[in-house]
């Protein structure tokens, strides 16, 4: 059993991990940059240690300071959350070298899966289907020739990358050289590795991923699939489980492939194997994420399991007794990522300060946030503020629950995508489960807010102006007898 876990992260995932630590009676140690000193994860943890860095994000990436903080707090393990150092093999190795438990897979497995090309070769060796592809191993010109041979459309991306950075779709041989060159320079800038990689681009593909959990000794179970096809700017915004309209036999083949890959790698702890599913039912290995996923709550809802608890028990030395036959997929769960952004302006990130926050409540509703009233939302960190998750017996009921919960959520002080998400949950194609990763772009016009009726516009404007001292004084503190207007202001 672990005694004290340092969370090398911030925001909602740090709060999420601290919750399970509290339930398990394990002490929690938060770290924070000065800019985050008032953040909920700092207050929620038993201990909190400030890390210094000029740029806030750099604090959460500073291995030396993190290890020093773990020593100071007496932590015996480090949970990296997702993002930051979660998939950094060098960090994982440094944690273990310092005599601490790294709550995640073995460093060499992180390294293997972190390199798209090596990971792909490993998947091929395990018999997993992969899309036709080629990688740059010589000059850019040679790469362009090889890639053209695969045929178009092609997807070009950084060999070392993730998260949609430096990714582009090339539809003809003419545009390939320029796009390859751009991708390479972006790859160099983001990942300090200019190598690029091309693969057959699947039209209207679905993004299906499988949550797995391994004990590091070759025992691996899956916790079923998630569909994450609703994306904007190559980033997921809605995830669900089960994947809609996915035949059980196909679902089972995809899950089995994921288990096969993870078992071959001797995978330890929680991980996710991502696949592209083509309209013809063929699926291809995409990549493996060697960490807890943002969207893990949908799996928690449908399986009833606490993934962070599973992670902590295994890391604490307990044997993994979880058997495949014990894991069932019950009901339907959705997750929405609540982001500080302006969907009507190409999802441009927004900043502000949380002025009012009323999370939705009730049966089958979960809100994972790292927010509090007064918290500044700055450009220093990722724009994801919180996650809203719903669960109900059927997809239709879960979607209705999400629609109601999105309407119930009040978050004022920064522009966000809550209303936009609500429009997706009212879209007939979405409700029919006809999803693909281009859904948001394809349906962009249907997802624009209806123009306000004059009555609603007037209501909004009056609500706004009556909330100001200046106007309410004009409206209520008039020269007429006080008694006649007293009831307006209570």
């Amino acid at each position: 059993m672990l005694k004290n876990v340092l969370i090398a992260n911030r925001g909602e995932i740090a709060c999420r991990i601290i919750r399970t630590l509290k339930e398990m009676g394990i002490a929690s140690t938060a770290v924070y940059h000065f800019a985050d000193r008032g953040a909920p994860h700092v207050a929620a943890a038993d201990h909190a240690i400030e890390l210094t860095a000029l740029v806030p994000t750099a604090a959460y990436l500073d291995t030396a300071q993190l290890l020093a903080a773990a020593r100071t707090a007496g932590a015996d393990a480090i949970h990296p959350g997702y993002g930051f150092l979660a998939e950094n093999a060098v960090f994982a190795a440094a944690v273990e070298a310092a005599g601490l438990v790294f709550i995640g897979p073995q460093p060499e497995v992180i390294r293997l899966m972190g390199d798209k090309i090596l990971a792909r070769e490993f998947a091929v060796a395990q018999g997993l289907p992969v899309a036709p592809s080629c990688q740059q191993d010589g000059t850019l010109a040679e790469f362009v020739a090889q890639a053209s041979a695969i045929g178009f459309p092609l997807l070009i991306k950084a060999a070392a990358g993730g998260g949609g950075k430096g990714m582009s779709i090339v539809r003809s041989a003419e545009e390939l050289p320029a796009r390859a060159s751009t991708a390479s320079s972006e790859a160099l800038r983001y990942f300090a590795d200019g190598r690029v990689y091309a693969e057959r681009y699947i039209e209207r593909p679905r993004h299906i991923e499988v949550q797995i959990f391994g004990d590091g000794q070759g025992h691996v179970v899956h916790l079923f699939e998630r569909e994450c096809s609703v994306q904007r700017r190559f980033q997921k915004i809605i995830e669900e489980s089960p994947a809609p309209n996915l035949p059980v036999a196909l679902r089972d083949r995809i899950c089995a492939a994921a288990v096969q890959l993870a078992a071959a790698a001797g995978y330890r702890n929680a991980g996710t194997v991502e696949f592209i599913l083509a309209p013809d039912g063929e699926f291809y290995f995409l990549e493996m994420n060697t960490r807890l996923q943002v969207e893990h709550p949908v799996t928690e809802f449908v399986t009833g399991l606490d993934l962070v608890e599973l992670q902590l028990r295994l890391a604490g030395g307990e044997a993994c007794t979880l058997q495949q036959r014990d894991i069932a997929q019950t009901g339907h769960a959705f997750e929405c990522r609540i982001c500080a952004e302006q969907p009507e302006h190409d999802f441009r990130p927004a900043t502000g300060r949380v002025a009012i926050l009323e999370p939705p409540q009730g049966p089958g509703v979960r809100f994972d946030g790292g927010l509090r009233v007064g918290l500044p939302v700055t450009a220093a960190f990722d724009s994801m503020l919180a996650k809203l998750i719903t669960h109900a017996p059927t997809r239709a009921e879960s979607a209705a629950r999400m629609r109601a919960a999105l309407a119930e959520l009040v978050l004022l002080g920064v522009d966000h995508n809550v209303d936009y998400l609500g429009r997706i949950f009212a879209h007939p194609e979405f409700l029919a489960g006809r999803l693909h990763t281009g859904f948001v772009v394809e349906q962009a016009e249907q997802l624009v807010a209806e123009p306000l009726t004059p009555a609603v516009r007037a209501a909004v404007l009056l609500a706004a102006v009556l909330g100001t001292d200046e106007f309410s004084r004009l409206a209520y503190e008039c020269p007429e007898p006080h008694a006649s207007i007293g009831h307006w202001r209570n």
Partner: protein
Amino acid sequence: MPTLLTLDGTTSEVDIIGRRPQLNLRVDDLHCRVEELPSGGASPCDITINGQRHRVWRAREGDRIHVHLDGRSYSVGYQEAVRAAAQSGHASNEIRAEMPGMVVELRAALGDDVAAGDPLLVIESMKMQITVTAPRAGVIESIHVEPNTSFQKGTLLVLLRAVVE
């Protein structure tokens, strides 16, 4: 004098017509009979307009009022904001940074003719790339940033010169 408010890029006038027996207001051409149910001061409160009840949360932040009404969020610009916008309308030659970030790429060069919506430069902010476009037609008068340099909120990025018609 009516109060000016902006919403979705359009400005409306709100004026007080009468206070008894009920508060009567005008929003542009729409006559509104308003009742506000006391809520103990804080959000949420109930406002009934022409018999239609609305549940409202609101928070003011300088010249913006954030409103949550009947399950949707809105951001309303208030008087002062309207004036500022009117002024900056005259000064919209200046394209300034709306948030801190880094310049990724310039998409326009000195002296270029640009139309409204044309890309001027690509910036990165909050881990996302954003294309800054021309707010109106003009000629690039000067460019004040370079690729791979960072800037603060409010930094002048590009100066346009109006096209002489």
